[in-house]
């Protein structure tokens, strides 16, 4: 067993890189946890594709409004200062470059920033893309939050995606249980290992060359 970050710690580490006042869209799964780890003194405004800016935490079951859901079809709340709008306006926010950060899960992410998170491409699978292809093209920064490897131990950070792409060259940074990794013009670069995790371990579980941490300036 390796040490490394828990899902919660991964989400918290990611949240540290989101600036105060950012407009943020969180994908389904681990990315949803980011909302629980907003650093002190900062405020993020959450967007959900189905027409809400200012999404709040899930309600108590007694306070559920069946007409207030997020893009993952989970019941949510709206914070003071929220706004409702229709789908064309919602995707204008996305495609028009108005959102600052989108945090997505993934199946694979390549060292050139290619993302594959919508389809295994298997025969007989029902293809379903949702808003992922719009998000990766429109949001200013795409962060990926994912386990470093699959349950079978295969690398998710790869030289080249083998699953169908969501977008080409769209990812800027990756947060895993083992490390924070940047996409650079030269490929993957280690930004920060999880406590107790060595470069060698991260490198061995990464499916493409991993540049070491940049030396501190000066």
């Amino acid at each position, binding site marked *: 067993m390796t040490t490394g970050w828990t899902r919660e710690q991964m989400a918290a580490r990611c949240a540290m890189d989101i600036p105060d006042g950012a407009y943020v869209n969180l994908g389904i799964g681990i990315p949803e946890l980011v909302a629980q780890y907003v650093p002190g003194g900062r405020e993020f405004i959450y967007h*959900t*594709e*189905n*027409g*809400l800016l200012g999404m709040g935490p899930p309600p108590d079951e007694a306070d559920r*409004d*069946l*007409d*207030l*859901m*997020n*893009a993952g*079809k989970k019941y949510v709340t*709206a914070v003071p200062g929220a706004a*409702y*709008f*229709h*789908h*064309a306006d*919602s*995707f204008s926010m*996305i*495609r028009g470059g108005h959102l600052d950060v989108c945090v997505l899960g993934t199946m694979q992410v390549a060292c050139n920033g290619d993302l594959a998170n919508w389809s295994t491409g298997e025969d*007989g699978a*029902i*293809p*379903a*893309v*949702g*808003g*992922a*292809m*719009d998000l990766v*093209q*429109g949001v200013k920064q795409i962060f990926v939050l994912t386990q470093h490897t699959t349950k079978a131990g295969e690398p998710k950070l790869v030289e080249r995606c083998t699953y*169908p*792409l*969501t*977008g*080409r060259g769209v990812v800027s940074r990756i947060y895993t249980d083992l490390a924070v990794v940047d996409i650079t013009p030269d490929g993957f670069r280690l930004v920060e290992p999880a406590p107790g995790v060595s470069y060698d371990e991260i490198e061995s579980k990464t499916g493409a060359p991993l540049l070491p941490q940049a030396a501190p300036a000066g």
Partner: protein
Amino acid sequence: MIDKTCPSVEQAVADIPDGATVMIGGFGASGSPIELIHALIDHGATGLTVINNNTGNGEVGLAALIGNGQVRKMVCSFPRSSQSKVFPEMYRAGKVELELVPQGTLAERIRAAGAGIPAFYTPTTVGTVLEHGKETRTFDGRTYVMEPWLRADFALIKCEQADPLGNLTYNKTARNFSPIMCMAAATTIVQARQLVQRGAIDPEHVVTPGIFVERVVGVPDPVHEDTLIAAGRSYP
């Protein structure tokens, strides 16, 4: 005096012919016009092309319409979910076609139809398998695909308040695709939780102006898809 109200959901959908293209509002369960969909099942039109973000859940509403064999083709962004069994089975059996459209492109194609824009360019799908067959073009060094408008013969819509002129408001995220579908369909049919008098909706708060609406039916206590599924219901 203009009065677009219609006495029943049955009458409201009675002229939808076989082979029609029908937009259905809603995102998952939220905003789904269940009573209008069930009336369309009773009406029995077949060979429909249906445009909705999803393909329904359980065995009620849109899933029931598909399960009843009335839908030839679905146009949607996300045709499966944890509770959608009907569409996946029929799709694998070759009984229904699928046009998969990314959600933002789906919304913009619908809006374009309502706005008289036959085509537009978007970066969405560039570099993916969903780009295949689409014309691409470069603007300012970035590649985009051309997408056509998406029109419909009918739209089935659920709203919160409606007045006799067809002015509409919605409730929270039940708004989703409905306002743009009202714009894009030749005949828009709306079920309203509240029918209100002319002038009861503040002109500043109208979300869908009446010009985009042809028929309004009062459905004061609409069922919700999630509630039906939790109760184990199916339709018909």
